């Protein structure tokens, strides 16, 4: 029982992932264990959650995430997700999860064709999920950095209807006051979508980087709420599993 409260995260590592170490560091700062899992591995090992980190896997050849999704480790991630495991994709990780069909829609070139590296504001649209329960609810938007050239979220109209009806939109780009406006949309995403979850709410992805926002020295700690939501969800899962046993 000594390590019962420490959650174990697998951080995937593809050729040209570049936020893998950021994720490891962020999770350790938050008191969790984090280990890197190489893309050629066919098993995740004993872990409680998976993070698909940011970067430029396979040099973004063909489409962002298109090649990474066929890596052996992604088969293991699909099985893990099918069994209800928590999976979060950040930036390139979000693109990979969409390409893999674990999340609906796709991410395309930013509307202005430019790479955006800046702080953005995010409105959390659903607090009742394993990725958002610990996010501040006082109406103040999250301030989290983005760094992407292809973060314009697209999904067809029926998919968007479903995302809205089932409250799968987790975060939307907004202004400093929390208003979801066209001017606050950095990349042209439909409905200002910055992050979504699947229908079961065990897989989520977002373009902004909570992993780069857990320490004040980097300008914002607002990423903590997102990662802490996952940690809390895992803790309560483990507690109920222990109670059942």
């Amino acid at each position, binding site marked *: 029982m000594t390590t019962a409260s420490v959650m174990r995260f697998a951080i995937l590592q593809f050729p040209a992932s570049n936020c893998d170490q950021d994720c490891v560091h962020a999770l350790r700062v938050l008191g969790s264990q984090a280990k890197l899992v190489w893309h050629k591995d066919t098993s995740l090992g004993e872990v409680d959650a998976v993070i698909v980190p940011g970067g430029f896997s396979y040099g973004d050849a063909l489409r962002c995430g298109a090649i990474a999704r*066929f890596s052996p480790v992604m088969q293991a991630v699909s099985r893990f997700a099918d069994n209800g495991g928590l999976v979060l994709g950040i930036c390139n990780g979000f693109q990979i999860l969409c390409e893999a069909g674990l999340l609906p829609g796709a991410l*395309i070139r930013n509307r*202005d064709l430019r790479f955006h590296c800046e702080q953005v504001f995010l409105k959390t649209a659903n607090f009742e999920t394993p990725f958002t329960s610990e996010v501040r609810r006082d109406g103040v938007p999250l301030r989290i950095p983005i760094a992407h050239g292809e973060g314009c979220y697209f999904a*067809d109209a029926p998919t968007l209807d479903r995302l809205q009806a089932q409250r799968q939109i987790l975060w939307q780009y907004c202004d400093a006051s929390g208003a979801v406006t066209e001017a606050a949309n950095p990349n*042209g995403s439909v409905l200002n979508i910055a992050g979504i979850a699947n229908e079961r709410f065990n897989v989520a992805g977002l373009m902004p980087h909570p992993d780069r926002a857990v320490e004040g020295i980097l300008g914002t700690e607002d990423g903590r709420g997102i990662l802490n939501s996952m940690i809390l969800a895992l803790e309560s899962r483990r507690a109920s599993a222990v109670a059942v046993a």
Partner: protein
Amino acid sequence: MKAKLVITPKKAVLDPQGKTVANALEHMGYAGVTGVRVGKYIEIDLAPGTSATDAHNALNEAALRFLSNPVIEDYRLEIVE
């Protein structure tokens, strides 16, 4: 023997690159351009003697699974000698 695959963004998908090219064409004086979609062209070399039907079937599957993303793209596949 070759396969030629032309991939274009779907109509409903934003194509800022196509729009920029269309604007440039207009500025250059090319009249009558009503729209531009910028996509990709993939040429795949095939071993001589490959059955065109087999190649078409296999690459059609590859185009759906991997070479294009049906959420955002349409494609046209052609096998040529």
